[in-house]
């Protein structure tokens, strides 16, 4: 028994040693390293969750919604969580597929990152944010996902606001669209990270892009305690999201509708037409009342993620690239609508306003005859008649003589170039600076422009003049191209007489956007100031208080007298009654609402003419400018002018509507809304 007792004594010693070891280790872990483990525990247990702010609505000038929010149940996938699972989240996705009734392969496609070789469906946004895979989920499926988090780790279902377009396709390009924030955007823009929640979208085009910061609001921040599955147990602290501002625009939804319908009809009547645009401006304020573009699309395709097919279609030549607004990005030769600038230039250059000008059937420059449209010959006429009847030869002569005075082919050291200079004063050849992205500058050809162009293409052209175009199949075409290259190499720097002649009537290398033309007319018919048009009118807080009115900047002033402007106005006022647009306005009660305007028919190489009508009303005291352009629309008088007539009929409530009843005016007395609307809850 002594040996046994001895060995039990050893056991006693071992037990005591064990207790000492355990206590020492506990001291080490809990007392010495305790604070460090507290930090680790806090990190594993708490998460910062951003609560997206409700994006502000976009309203028309009367407070009617153009874009509003609609709530929907959205199921999102945290790709990072799935990737850390042993099977890469395969089992979770299969269960999700069963609940959502969506094939697993489709779910996998939607959560993979977009990149070279990976086309939609894929996720263009940040890989660290939950990826929405299903919108408009029925509540039962969402509940299943939320209640069985152990089966659906990394999957969340929550209510999100998505964009809703109550007016369908109206003003689609102007409103723009939203897309997920990309990782590079998050990294590039400092401070963006703090203002975007995981599921945030960013305005990619139109007003959504320009006013993104204001519309977005500030997301709320929630510090939550989560369990092992990432399920929220308690909310520690919360800062509520601040909803985005409401953007009130100067757009009038009714006028917009009228313009859209009118363009649709024009496109229907001229099936070969591949594009059209309509702009209605408030002359007094420089604000945009309506702006439409054809072809168009339904902005609904963006909500809940666009499909590969839809996305490709929108960017394809076949669809006519409906994302591009022809009103601000379409560049077209303006034709005779440009003559307001040419007349202004002639008078500013010293020609008499009330003088007499010859209007022969054609005008010969350097041995080549430039005819009037239809061989029209009017003899000695005033500038007034030249505008009303659109006599080209008057302007050819003026343009050619100005060119000669500048030195012709061998320009003087200091050239006057009255017509291009006046065109630039009217705001052509540069962006209007409207509050929309993607605007085109248009083009006004000058001697300097020609020289720049020559210098940048000289090397290539002179090389081609020597070697020709061996890669071209057609021998004749190759020979022609080689001849052109040789010509360009030798005298490409020369601003030719024919270029000056074409410029005078808005042809040749002159390109303008419909918006540029509209604001040029607004400047002429208003106070003579050239403004940078605005669509946004004011930003308001969701409670209806005004945050900021958006001013319309004045860019410059027309360098012509009020007398000249008044003279031109009076001439244009007779175009619908006695001039080129008389046919289009036959039967229109001009005695009730007097309309002014100018037709334009611009030739395009290899295509049908571009049809223009720049118009204003009332002609005696202009308040609104309406410009319609129909690409390949033919004569201005036959396509664009009737389209504008329909717009005036809608605005003033003339004639009978589709239902056979007298039309209600969209704008009573043709006066735009002058006071900001009162914001109500419903309008959001």
């Amino acid at each position, binding site marked *: 028994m002594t040996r046994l007792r001895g060995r039990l004594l050893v056991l006693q010693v071992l037990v005591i040693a064990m207790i000492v070891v355990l206590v020492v280790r506990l001291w080490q872990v809990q007392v010495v390293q305790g604070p460090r483990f507290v930090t680790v525990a806090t990190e594993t247990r708490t998460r910062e969750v951003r609560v997206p702010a409700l994006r502000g609505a976009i309203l028309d000038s009367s407070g009617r919604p153009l874009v509003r929010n609609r709530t929907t149940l959205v199921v999102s996938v945290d790709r990072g969580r799935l990737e850390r699972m042993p099977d890469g989240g395969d089992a979770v996705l299969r269960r999700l597929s069963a609940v959502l009734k969506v094939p697993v392969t489709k779910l996998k496609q939607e959560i993979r990152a977009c990149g070279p070789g990976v086309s939609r469906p894929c996720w263009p946004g940040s890989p660290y944010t939950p990826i929405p895979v299903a919108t408009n989920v029925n509540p039962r499926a969402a509940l299943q996902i939320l209640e069985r988090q152990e089966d659906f780790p990394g999957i969340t279902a929550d209510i999100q606001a998505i964009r809703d377009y109550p007016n369908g396709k109206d003003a689609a390009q102007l409103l723009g669209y939203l897309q997920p924030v990309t990782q590079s955007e998050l990294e590039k823009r400092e401070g963006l990270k703090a203002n975007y929640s995981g599921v945030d979208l960013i305005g990619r085009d139109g007003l959504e892009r320009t006013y993104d910061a204001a519309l977005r609001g500030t997301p709320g921040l929630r510090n939550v*305690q989560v369990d092992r599955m990432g399920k929220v147990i308690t909310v520690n602290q919360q800062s509520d999201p601040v909803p985005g501002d409401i953007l009130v625009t100067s757009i009038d939804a009714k006028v917009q509708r009228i313009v859209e319908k009118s363009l649709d009809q024009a496109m229907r009547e001229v099936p070969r037409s591949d594009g059209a645009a309509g702009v209605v401006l408030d002359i007094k304020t420089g604000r945009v009342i309506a702006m439409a573009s054809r072809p168009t699309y339904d902005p609904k395709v963006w909500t809940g993620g666009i499909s590969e097919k839809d996305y490709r279609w929108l960017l394809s030549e076949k669809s006519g690239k409906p994302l591009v607004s022809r009103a601000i990005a379409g560049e077209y030769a303006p034709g005779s609508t440009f003559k307001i600038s040419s007349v202004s230039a002639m008078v500013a250059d010293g020609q008499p306003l009330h003088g007499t000008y010859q209007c022969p059937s054609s005008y010969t420059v350097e041995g080549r005859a430039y005819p009037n449209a239809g061989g029209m010959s009017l003899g000695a006429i005033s500038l007034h008649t030249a505008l009303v009847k659109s006599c080209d030869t008057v302007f050819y002569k003026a343009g050619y003589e100005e060119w000669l005075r500048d030195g012709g082919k061998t320009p003087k050291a200091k050239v006057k170039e009255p017509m291009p200079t006046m065109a630039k004063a009217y705001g052509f050849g540069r962006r209007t600076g409207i509050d929309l992205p993607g605007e085109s500058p248009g083009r006004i050809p000058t001697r300097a422009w020609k020289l720049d162009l020559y210098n940048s293409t000289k090397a290539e052209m002179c090389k081609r003049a020597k070697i020709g175009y061996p890669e071209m199949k057609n021998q004749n075409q190759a020979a022609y191209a080689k001849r052109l290259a040789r010509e360009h190499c030798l005298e490409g720097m020369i601003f030719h007489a024919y270029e000056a002649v074409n410029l005078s009537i808005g042809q040749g290398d002159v390109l303008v956007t419909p918006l540029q033309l509209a604001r040029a007319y607004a400047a002429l018919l208003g106070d003579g100031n050239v403004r940078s048009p605005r669509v946004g009118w004011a930003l308001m807080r969701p409670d209806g208080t005004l945050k900021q009115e958006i001013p319309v900047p004045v860019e410059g002033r027309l360098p012509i007298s009020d007398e000249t402007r008044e003279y031109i106005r009076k001439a244009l006022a007779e175009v619908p009654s006695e001039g080129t647009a008389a046919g289009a306005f036959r039967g229109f009660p001009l005695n009730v609402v007097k309309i002014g305007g100018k037709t334009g028919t611009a030739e395009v190489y290899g295509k049908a003419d571009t049809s223009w009508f720049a118009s204003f009303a009332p002609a005696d005291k202009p308040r609104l400018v309406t410009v319609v352009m129909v690409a390949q629309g033919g004569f201005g008088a036959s396509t664009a002018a009737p389209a504008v007539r329909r717009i005036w009929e809608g605005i003033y409530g003339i004639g009978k509507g589709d239902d056979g009843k007298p039309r209600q005016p969209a704008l009573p007395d043709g006066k735009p809304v002058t006071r900001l609307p009162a914001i109500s809850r419903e309008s959001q």
Partner: protein
Amino acid sequence: MTDAIGVRRRSFASRVVGRGSVVWRMDWLLFGAVAALSLIGTLLVWSATRTWSSIEPTGMAKKHVLNLLIGLAIYSAVAVCDYRWLRTYAPVLYGIAVLGLILVISPMGSTVNGHHSWILLGGGFALQPAELMKPALVVMLARLLVPTSEKGKAKDRPRATGVALSLAAVGAAAVLVMMQPDLGTTMVLVATTGAIIVFAGIRKRWVVVGLLLAGVAAVAVWSLGLLKPYQVARFTALIDPSSDPRGVGYNSTQALVAIGSGEVFGKGLFHGGQTTGRFVPEQHTDFIFTVAGEELGFVGSVTVVALLGVVLLRGVRIARMCNDRFSALVSGGIIAWLAFQTLVNVGMTIGIMPITGVPLPFVSYGGTATFANMMAVAILQAIHLRSRPV
């Protein structure tokens, strides 16, 4: 006048609680420590399982209390028995345990939480025969290692046949348990057997040989790939928990975080964030100590260790006061078993032992384990009652 000097028959109450009675002479310190551990264990089980069901947060705690009550009944029954009966019925006890283990690996066995260790009894109750094997093996080995002809001066060393039979007994049990498979229980059985054989008085050189053989066997098992990959990984994770923080290392890392974040005074019962968030797996059974560490802090976890220390040291005292070899071996074996389990269980939660499925005696949730532990304490009490000089 025998009546005058005859002892008056004492009342039943006096016999049970009076001076010199079974209850009076019981080792109250030992019982008190076990009771305190059971109480703490119930609270910790409650805390660890209250988030399981919002309808009945106390469900598991109630089941644990029921287990304890059954355990108390077993305790009372065993404690009042003459421990020498154990010697007689040791083969029966061992036989029942072996039969249970065979049933487990037969189609009648069931898998719970990935362990094929159970015999379902219906009504939500289940038996875990491997737990029952622990006390059965201790009693069986004591019988085998103490020669029956214990007359006069007992032999100081076990007979070779006894040692051989002991190894056979533990071998059969270990093989059956490994077929479940349950590495933790196998380790407890082997360690306990080793301790009992050493207590029985084999020569020191055999002890050295045994340790060497164990070492060789461990190396062989390791290199021959007899262990499952996850079992190997647990040992690797012990050396470097960061080697696989999301896999095997996850458990030991989360256990350390939970215990460490308790600091000195803990976050308070029911206020442990790691426990509430269920970051530590199996927290009501094998990882119950992490709840104590997080919610009761250093003070609480040291209290638990200290109470276990009281149980073990009182047990050693009882063993050392034994008058016969059988009872000394039984109580020594029980202490070795409980001490080994305490070391492995607490050690794995604080990163000094590999992760193995071994419950913390008297604290972890578990039916059969609780019954086995209570039986062990009752045997210690029974030995204490009869070895103390009256």
